[in-house]
């Protein structure tokens, strides 16, 4: 199998989804780039292919009817995607940074996510919003948010956060097949990460976590690029005789309660690593749910390792300190790790 970068896996998924279904189209800012520039159109070339180059080549292949450069009008083009979805197309708009949801939220918050319910079950919303998340790219406070929890708090929206190229392709194809709104969060710092990706069309079901590593002593549940942090923690604790199970949620809404609860029933200990801020986030939701449903199985407190309750800083050292690392996970979870060590 060939190894390709995360961003190429996304590009491949979009290409295959568009090939499969004429009603799938892309819209967003500079996703083709250079629309109506004569010298580019003469050669059938795109310019940017998206601000990170993720959609590169799709414009020349499918034309500007299906790869639509929008004006910088996030409020209206996101709303237009909702309008196109509810009238029968299958739009895949790109919101360049999830931080821009501030200017465009209405279309998802009060319109799209509620239409099926408000209209008594008659509407379908086959809409996948692709957006980027994540700190670690020196993009500072307005281009680095990990806002999946905000989307996940709204009934009527599914939220996917892939951690690797294989999942990115399969989950995106599933999302586009959905007759529901899916917000597909791509961590921009993972775009260059390579992994094995089959060339053929395949899907990974939404709402199913992946057990990245089995273990019996401690469960770590995590999301997106924090999966690699969890794997590092597991490697380091293994050397101390602690057997860690790592669960990659893959989908934040709905998250896979069954897999998480089963894991905690087995291990009795849980750490949740979440790049979002510490309050009202996915980690908190998981901790509360596990406390409700598996309290008797817990042998210690649930540890949540998250970003601090601050905006994302710019200076490199501060940004590094902002993101959860293996060191921080081990340090902040000392209470349960020490307990495990002493029981060995």
């Amino acid at each position: 199998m060939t190894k390709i970068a995360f961003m190429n896996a996304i590009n491949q998924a979009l290409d295959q989804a568009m090939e499969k279904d004429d009603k799938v189209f892309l819209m967003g800012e500079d996703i083709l780039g250079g629309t109506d520039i004569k010298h580019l159109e003469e050669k059938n070339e795109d310019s940017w292919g998206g601000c990170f180059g993720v959609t590169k080549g799709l414009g020349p292949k499918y034309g500007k009817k299906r790869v639509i450069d929008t004006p910088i009008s996030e409020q209206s083009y996101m709303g237009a995607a909702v309008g196109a979805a509810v009238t029968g197309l299958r739009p895949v708009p790109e919101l360049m940074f999830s931080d821009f949801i501030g200017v465009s939220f209405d279309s998802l918050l009060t319109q799209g996510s509620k239409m099926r319910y408000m209209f008594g079950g008659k509407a379908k919303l086959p809409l996948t919003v692709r957006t980027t998340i994540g700190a670690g790219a020196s993009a500072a406070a307005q281009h680095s948010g990990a806002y999946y929890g905000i989307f996940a708090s709204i009934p009527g929206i599914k939220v996917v956060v892939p951690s690797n190229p294989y999942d990115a392709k399969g989950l995106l194809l599933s999302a586009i097949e959905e007759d529901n709104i899916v917000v597909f969060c791509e961590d921009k710092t993972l775009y260059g990460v390579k992994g094995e990706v089959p060339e053929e069309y395949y899907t990974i079901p939404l709402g199913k976590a992946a057990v990245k590593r089995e273990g019996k002593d401690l469960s770590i549940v995590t999301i997106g690029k924090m999966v690699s942090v969890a794997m590092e923690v597991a490697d380091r604790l293994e050397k101390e005789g602690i057997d860690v199970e790592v669960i990659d949620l893959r989908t934040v809404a709905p998250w896979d309660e069954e897999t998480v609860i089963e894991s905690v029933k087995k291990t009795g200990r849980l750490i949740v690593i979440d790049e979002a801020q510490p309050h009202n986030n996915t980690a908190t939701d998981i901790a509360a749910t596990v406390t409700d449903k598996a309290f008797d199985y817990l042998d210690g407190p649930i540890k949540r390792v998250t970003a601090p309750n601050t905006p994302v800083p710019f200076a490199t050292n501060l940004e590094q300190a902002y993101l959860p690392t293996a060191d921080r996970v081990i340090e902040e979870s000392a209470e349960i790790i020490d307990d495990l060590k002493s029981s060995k």
Partner: protein
Amino acid sequence: MKKLTAAKAKEAYEKMNDIRNFENTLHDIFAKGEIPGFVHLYAGEEAVAVGVCSHLTDSDYITSTHRGHGHCIAKGCDLKGMMAEIYGRETGLCKGKGGSMHIADLDKGMLGANGIVGSGFPLAIGAGLRNQYLGTDDVAVCFFGDGAANEGNFHESINMAAIWKLPVVFINENNTFAESTPQHYSSASPTIAERAAAYNIPGEKVDGKDFMAVYEAAGKAIDRARKGEGPSLIEYHTYREYGHFEGDEQTYKYDSDEEIAFHDRDDIKEFRAYALKKKLFTEKDAEKIEDKSVQDVADAVEFAKASPIPQPEALFTDVFAD
């Protein structure tokens, strides 16, 4: 543009009566406390919804506003289903889960009343994009109030419709007040229509109390959109009979003699007189339509009151498609 035939004129007169009776009835039953929530009544503006929608079929789309009952009726929604929805009953158009402000009927191309001011603009862009994408000659009509004209979506959406030449028609219902705030205070441009120049599209201000003026202006704009020539903006000057919502004391009204005279004009009576003069229907036809409309609305109320409330399980369904 299609000339107003006798059959179309009758149908329009029926719908205008239906809207007026529906809203007058709601005004009375709301005061009696029979319906939950709040309602925003369309009475007084009938000529606009009906004059515009007379050019549309079920495969054309409309987006609507807080004040959506008139658009629903003009677009052909069922009176009983509408009334039951406003009563919160299982037989409502949206199974009682939407209510007055979210009443919708996708089978009729009615994309919903909307509780968020200005949020209909991009939905209409999406529907117009869909029509263009699929190569149909269907149009999307975006009804919006004078208040919505000051939302950011107004600018973004009209600009997009113009650059992509979308089959969308923007219908501004300038009913003189955005909630309680007059347009001369809240808009820097004296008219909404003149803003069309900024987007290089046709814009025109029309007497919204005059059914024929509404009908003709809308017909021109809708024809243009169907032919792929792009969007237009029409500002219809009209006046709402009741408050912004039921219970509004409307102390902001009647600031000038001119305003009082405009308020006193009745679009339905004016159209009736015109149609009789032009022999589009007879006095007898008109009376028959008027009586039937009163009866149909009374039947809708009876239907709604006799309908069951939603089953408790309905709380949990229809969040996601399977």
